[in-house]
């Protein structure tokens, strides 16, 4: 399979940036778990099986602040609700085969869904989704494994600004899509709802609530985000 599918909007620079970001963030997440005293093999297994930083970090955060393991698991499920929504978003344009969708569900992240949805043709969308899933998952696994071993060297990832890489990547992913009237409204309203509710509802729910702003799409004479036109 080609690294970058030809005839699609995906460019090599985007794939490399995503790979680099997930590699670096994986190292950071491993360091956080190592600092909390988690077994190194468990950290690597979490990267392979759970395939989500926010879920394991939510568990670590909930239990570190005195919550039970059940509370931690619940927190991890709540913060992961966005993956279900993203999967539902892209599913209508993926393969009709249930087996293929079962595999595709494993690698449902924000960047590969967002960039795949730019494609006009379903075939191109599917190729971009598969390609970007590899660009995400492989650096994620590698970074997680490396992070376990370099944890002692990079003791403070925040001092290197690594915590900003995720939101900065998402800004870059969204930039072109926000160049559209309704996209700006949906995006700003989503951010405002998330920030307005974060101190009052459990972690993860602010993102879920923000997802409701997509209902603005029902407005008359609406159009999809710019890159989807």
């Amino acid at each position, binding site marked *: 399979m080609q690294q970058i599918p030809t005839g699609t909007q995906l460019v090599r620079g985007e794939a490399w940036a995503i790979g680099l970001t997930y590699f670096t963030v994986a190292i950071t997440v491993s360091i956080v778990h190592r600092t909390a005293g988690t077994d190194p093999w468990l950290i690597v297994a979490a990267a392979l099986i759970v395939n989500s930083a926010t879920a394991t970090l939510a568990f670590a955060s909930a239990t570190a602040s005195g919550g039970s393991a059940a509370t*931690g698991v619940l927190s991890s*499920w709540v913060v992961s609700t966005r993956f279900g*929504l993203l999967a539902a978003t892209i599913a209508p344009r993926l393969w009709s085969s249930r087996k293929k969708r079962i595999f595709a569900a494993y690698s449902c992240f924000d960047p590969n869904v967002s960039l795949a949805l730019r494609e006009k043709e379903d075939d191109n969308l599917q190729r971009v989704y598969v390609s970007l899933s590899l660009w995400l998952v492989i650096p994620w696994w590698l970074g997680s494994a490396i992070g376990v071993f370099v944890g002692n060297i990079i003791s403070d990832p925040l001092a290197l600004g690594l915590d900003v890489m995720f939101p900065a990547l998402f800004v870059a992913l969204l930039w072109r899509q926000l160049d559209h009237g309704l996209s700006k409204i949906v995006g700003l309203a989503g951010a405002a709802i998330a920030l307005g509710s974060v101190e009052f509802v459990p972690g993860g729910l602010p993102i879920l609530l923000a997802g409701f702003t997509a209902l603005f799409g029902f407005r008359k004479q609406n159009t999809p985000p710019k890159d989807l036109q």
Partner: protein
Amino acid sequence: MLTWGALFFIAAGVYGQRLLGMTSTSSKRLSGPWIIVLSYIPVAILCAVIALQTFTHQGELQIDARVVGIIAAAFCCWRHWPMAAVVTIAALTTALTRLIL
């Protein structure tokens, strides 16, 4: 601290939600307006994630060096710089701001 038991419950919940989303919708069952609504969900979710990861810390609103990093990222996007440059400059700007503050 993460345990093997917790790990399997977390994995089941996370994958279960992804699977549910992936298998519960199909283009045959959705009408035009719903497909457009679904296309806006990534925009809403990504904006919410950006806002929360920039302006909150452990569930509370907080303004710190991350804001400077994200402003730098937005500037790079506005100048149409490559995505790798956006991410790297955002991290460096945040690190520098933390060093100064």
